């Protein structure tokens, strides 16, 4: 049993030693007159690493696994009714990069119904082997048959690493399979790397993104990680297909206690609070119809339109889409403000956004104080030029 041992004699200042622990797990036991570690311990190792010399020690027990028997970086092909989620291509790109460092192959595992055409398409993204489980039973996503097929793949192929997109389905399936193999799973990794000994280096935000944790699965295989969409880079599609397709016999028992009764299209939600991309129209928009270019920009970026208070007062927007102290507070990945001056109230509602682009004619506009990219120009020049550029690239490649 791995644990932290307290060497009492190496603790000079007890109060100071107790304060090292950010979780309050180091306690003074009045009865035993000893410093103890309580169940609140998160094994963060801070006391071992930062505490008084020799006071806190890690006692570990050894487990051995032959890592050479586990080969390949695998990607689960995330799809909804056969439509492959783009996170899959991004993970294949990452898998290739990791696999090349340790000289492993890249595998994809594709579980679904009537999916062989889509499986063929994956060969254009640099996969060495696509393992396909094609059966009527996989038509709807139900946890038991999907887990059974995934487990069958791992039994057959023994991959070293398994990457799964952190989609609604992936977040349900990956833990189930990881638990079946009693192995580690690290959720929502933002950075992945690999050590020479094939240990996957998994970095993910913790405490609401306030710190980053580097996590490894040193004694178990396969090592599972999930990654959100738009974190990794998708490779370009190659003209010539590579690798091969292997059709796998589905496991015999594909029964499920879950029955899918019906399914309906999701309604589009108008809430800006959860949007990842927001384009904001400000007072520089002169006419209501000019909002169209802002809407178009939001549309091509897959985002939502928001407005500032003057536009709400002019009756040009839904009050639910107002950003600021009297409106919504937002924290998107990308926010582009178009002709917004940047009042204190407005800035308070959006200053935590990850990337802030501000377009304004006035070089002294307050919005530039919080912008990561301050674009000093007229929205009536910049946005149409941007939209034209996007359209042009679409036409070229179409």
């Amino acid at each position, binding site marked *: 049993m791995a644990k932290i041992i307290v060497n009492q004699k190496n603790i000079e200042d007890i109060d100071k030693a107790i304060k090292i622990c950010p979780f309050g797990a180091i306690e003074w036991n009045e009865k035993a007159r000893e410093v103890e570690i309580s169940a609140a311990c998160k094994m963060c190792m801070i006391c071992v690493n930062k505490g008084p010399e020799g006071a806190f020690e890690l006692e570990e027990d050894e487990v051995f696994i032959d890592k050479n028997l586990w080969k390949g970086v695998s990607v689960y092909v995330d799809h909804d009714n056969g439509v492959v989620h783009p996170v899959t291509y991004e993970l294949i790109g990452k898998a290739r990069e990791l696999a090349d460092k340790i000289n492993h192959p890249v595998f994809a595992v594709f579980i679904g119904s009537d999916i062989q055409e889509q499986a063929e398409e994956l060969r254009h993204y640099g996969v060495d082997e696509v393992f396909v489980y094609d059966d009527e039973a996989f038509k709807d996503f139900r946890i038991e048959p999907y887990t059974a097929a995934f487990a069958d793949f791992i039994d057959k192929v023994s991959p070293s690493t398994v990457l799964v997109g952190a989609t609604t389905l992936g977040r349900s399936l990956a833990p*189930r399979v990881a638990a079946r193999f009693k192995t580690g799973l690290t959720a929502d990794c933002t950075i992945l790397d690999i050590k020479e000994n094939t240990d996957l280096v998994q970095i993910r935000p913790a405490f609401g993104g306030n710190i980053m944790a580097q996590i490894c699965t040193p004694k178990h295989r396969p090592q599972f990680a999930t990654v959100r969409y738009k974190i990794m880079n998708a490779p370009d599609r190659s003209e010539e297909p590579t690798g091969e397709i292997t059709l796998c016999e589905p496991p015999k028992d594909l029964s499920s206690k879950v029955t899918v009764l019906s399914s309906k299209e999701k309604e589009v939600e108008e809430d800006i609070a959860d949007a990842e991309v927001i384009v904001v129209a400000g007072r520089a928009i002169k006419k209501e119809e000019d909002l169209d270019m802002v809407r178009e920009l939001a549309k091509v970026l897959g985002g939502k339109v928001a407005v500032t208070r003057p536009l709400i007062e002019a009756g040009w927007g839904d009050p639910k889409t107002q950003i600021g102290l009297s409106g919504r507070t937002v924290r998107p990945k990308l926010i582009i403000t178009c002709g917004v001056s940047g009042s204190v109230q407005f800035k308070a509602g959006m200053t935590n956004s990850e990337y802030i682009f501000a377009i304004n004619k006035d070089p002294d506009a307050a919005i530039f104080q919080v912008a990561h990219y301050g674009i000093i120009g007229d929205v009536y020049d910049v946005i149409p030029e941007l939209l034209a550029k996007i359209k042009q690239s679409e036409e070229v490649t179409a």
Partner: protein
Amino acid sequence: MKTLVCIKQVPGNTEVQVDDNGNLIRSGIDAKMNPYDLYAIETALKIREDKGGKISVMTMGPPQAKEVIREAYMMGLDDGFLLTDRRFAGADVLSTSYTLSQGAYKAGDFDIIICGKQTTDGDTAQVGPEMAEYLNIPHVANVKSIVECKEKSIVLEVEMPTTIQTVEVAFPCLITVEKGIYQPRLPSYRLKKKTKYQEITELTLDDFKDKNEKRYGLSGSPTQVEQIFPPEQNTTSERWEGENLGEKLYDELIDLKFIYKNK
């Protein structure tokens, strides 16, 4: 109808910083119930209002985690279990799920186990499904609403990537519910007084069927935190002026992956 709700005590806030020496600086050590778990509790209460029965609540943590069970009592839950043992410390997702599954075996036979979507400190959303695997029961994640609770099954609406599915799942099963499935009620003062001395059953490793220490806490955790560090802040502060600003913006948005070049 026997329901189990799994809850967790989490830090009162996630304001945490790392100083130059790599130490965690936490402002305050106040703790609260994981907000997502309130929805799980409310869902269980709605099922009980409809079908009757009993709702148990379970958490794993240090002795002070009893506070969240007290809070669950104030919302109307019937009995509580605290899984607490020094040997559970340092548990990652897998060993947490295993510990909870052992606790659930011990606590009774349940028709349905309800978990919140995720926690605010771990943010993994993985414990529910892993626990279901260990209990060998089906699970349904991302449950948006309860359509109907029947004698031997439950009909649910589930958030899928592009659709809302209606599914029926047989008991026993585990579900994880979305934030907003039902508006959680506030703790009641009347119940607070009534349940002030109500017992909370404490379970340790010695109470479990599987007493192998290697499956719990850090020993049972395949993942290990190697180090922690502060996130990179976006400290970009650029000013652009002049011509072709739209094109420049286009290039930057491609670089940052907000625009995808069509393949």
